[in-house]
């Protein structure tokens, strides 16, 4: 006899609307509540569908890059990189080593800025606004670096087919090395503030557990999968843009069967990924090679022969695949993105059933959802 039969209560229905401070993006949760505990949750998305994939088909090739970096507003570099790699595979363009290294630098900067956005969301869900301000202050430094080289803080639109739009400005490398020093101190400060904090551990441990078996069945990839012990990093399996030349170690949560992939593990893994990315930044920045930055003249329209390609990139949220089909004309025939946030959205109903209503913000923010990239 469950408590409901004894007390003869029915479930309360709650629709947490598209725009709410607890939600990581515009999505609606239709929930049934038994008092404080969520019994079942259904996710409605589609509120931020911008028709990106239709927009690709009516733009010229060069304009589709500025649309590709609007795929995921938190990590603009990954959409561009996937599209550029795919078109370079179709048109058989060679990318000079310096351009590849700058792409790796920008990817890792984008990964750190996306993980910091994740830390801000978790801090807001847990309710400590000091951590929010510390993380945002450090993220400003990355956005300033983006602006220094590419000209824009968010949607950088800096990669071109065959390399990058222009050479990096001269102060870029020194400031990256400074930054990696700064992050070593800052990550220690985040650890003091959150990782060892008893209140934070109590608030996130055992909340939103995602076992590694479920991770594979749902198709969850990226940091969330690695936090559940399932190590799949595209930078290691399908190295692209010079990642095989960099030695770095993919952080995977070793759970020793205690608990698998709860919000605390996902948070800790993001911190470790920031540390690994800083290490990669330092490594690539120290021995960056000189030479051309693009194998094609700037501003010259590209002739993409008929063909197709599917490229995988490790974005900050997981495996980002880009399937490009070209019919030889000035405009792309079809560009489709396989985004990691589909699987994270599919995991929400399972994670939410059985959690308390107060833990809803913690569970949703711990997944690191990119709702804009799921709806495209």
């Amino acid at each position: 006899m469950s408590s409901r039969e004894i007390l003869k209560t029915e479930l309360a229905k709650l629709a947490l609307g598209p725009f709410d401070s607890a939600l990581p993006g515009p999505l609606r949760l239709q929930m049934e509540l038994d008092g404080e505990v969520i019994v079942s949750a259904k996710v409605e998305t589609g509120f931020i569908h911008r028709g990106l994939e239709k927009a690709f088909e009516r733009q010229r090739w060069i304009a589709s890059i500025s649309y590709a970096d609007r795929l995921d507003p938190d990590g603009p570099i990954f959409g561009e990189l996937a599209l550029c790699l795919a078109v370079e595979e179709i048109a058989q363009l060679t990318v000079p080593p310096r351009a590849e290294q700058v792409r790796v630098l920008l990817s890792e900067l984008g990964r750190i800025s996306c993980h910091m956005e994740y830390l801000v969301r978790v801090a807001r869900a847990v309710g400590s606004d000091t951590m929010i301000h510390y993380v945002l202050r450090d993220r400003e430094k990355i956005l300033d670096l983006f602006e220094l080289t590419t000209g824009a803080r968010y949607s950088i639109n800096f990669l071109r087919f065959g390399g990058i739009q222009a050479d990096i400005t001269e102060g870029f490398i020194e400031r990256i090395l400074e930054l990696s020093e700064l992050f070593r101190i800052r990550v220690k400060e985040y650890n003091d503030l959150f990782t060892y904090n008893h209140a934070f551990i109590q608030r996130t441990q055992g909340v939103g557990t995602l076992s590694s078996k479920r991770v594979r069945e749902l198709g969850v990839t990226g940091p969330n999968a690695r936090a559940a012990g399932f190590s799949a990093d595209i930078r290691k399996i399908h190295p692209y843009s010079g990642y095989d030349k960099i030695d770095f170690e993919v952080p995977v949560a070793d759970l020793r069967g205690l608990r698998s992939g709860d919000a605390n593990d996902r948070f800790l893994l993001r911190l470790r990924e920031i540390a690994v990315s800083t290490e990669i930044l330092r490594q690539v920045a120290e021995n960056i090679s000189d030479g051309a930055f693009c194998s094609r003249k700037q501003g010259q329209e590209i002739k993409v022969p008929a063909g197709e390609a599917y490229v995988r990139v490790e974005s900050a949220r997981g495996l980002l695949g880009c399937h490009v089909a070209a019919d030889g004309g000035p405009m792309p025939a079809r560009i489709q993105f396989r985004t990691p946030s589909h699987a994270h959205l599919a995991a929400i109903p399972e994670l939410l059933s059985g959690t308390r209503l107060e833990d809803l913000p913690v569970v949703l923010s711990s997944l690191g959802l990119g709702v804009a990239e799921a709806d495209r």
Partner: protein
Amino acid sequence: MNAFLWVSSWLEGFGLEQVESIWILAPLGLIFIFLFIIVPSSMIVAYLDRKVTADFQARVGPNRAGPAGVFQSWADFFKLLQKDRNSEVSWSEELWLAIHTMALYSTVAVLPLGSLMLLVDTDMSVFLPFWAALVVALGTMLLGLSQKTVAGWYGGIRVATQAISGAFPALVAMICVGLRAGSFRWSGLVAIQGAAPLSWTAFSNPFQFIALIVFLVSGLVLLAIPPMDAALSSPDVSGGVAAHLSGRRLVLFKMGRFYSFYLWAVIASVLFLGGWKLPFEISENLLEQGKIQLLHFLELCCLMTKSLILILLVIWGARVNPRTRVDQITDFAWTVLSPFALFALIGASLVAGWGVLS
């Protein structure tokens, strides 16, 4: 001795002739305390909260309204007064908001503000603010329930559960102090404590120090003050009880919140940190010379500095750490605060008994 005689000393200052009847002195005294002590203290606490939090977070904080943003609280006050409520207000919500504020400001009569400025000094005067805090929790709960919104519903119930679990350890900690002082009158409690820190109850023996910490933390739980305000904070289910209040109702609610924060700091400093005791018998010879206003002022300053230090400590702990869930707060209150409170009670009674026997 008529408790409100001190008011007539202020009246002479304004040139009004000697007034004896209690019916005039009492309201005047209450209004005087409310206008010149409660409202400014709430403003100061609000301003300090924002400025110190900004300082912790590498921010500048309010600096537009007045030098270093000193009049920021006034600006907020007037801004909120202009705003009107978007949807119509049900009578039940108005009623419970009124009850919530009345319960809170009924403690003004009992507020220990100085040896002479003590309005009500009965044997039970220590417990009156305590019961008022419970009525406030009840008022907040029913205010939330009457809002008929999800945020209000959950916020209200959570404030009530939290208050119950915070009440027991706070009560036990108060008894420890009463044990040592031998009476539950404000004047009796302060008379025991000397001016020097060592002679304060908190530092007289280790059990009292534990009682101080338990009293402070359970006060935070009882009144849902920042570190324990998961029920009212924004990331909660879209805002908690205060989400749907706006305009002057929000002013009432916010002033109530800051006042309860300030009230608990004053009571804690009177019980444990020597209240308004002035060193080197200043209060005695000031009484002889009849300078009552100066005595009031000095005692008030001494009391205010101690409670402001306590408030800063609480803000420091609140803003840096994440908020805990309400069920974790209640578990914390029952499994950690209550045992420590009882342990302090046993210890304090042993010490008190030892003193009597030897």
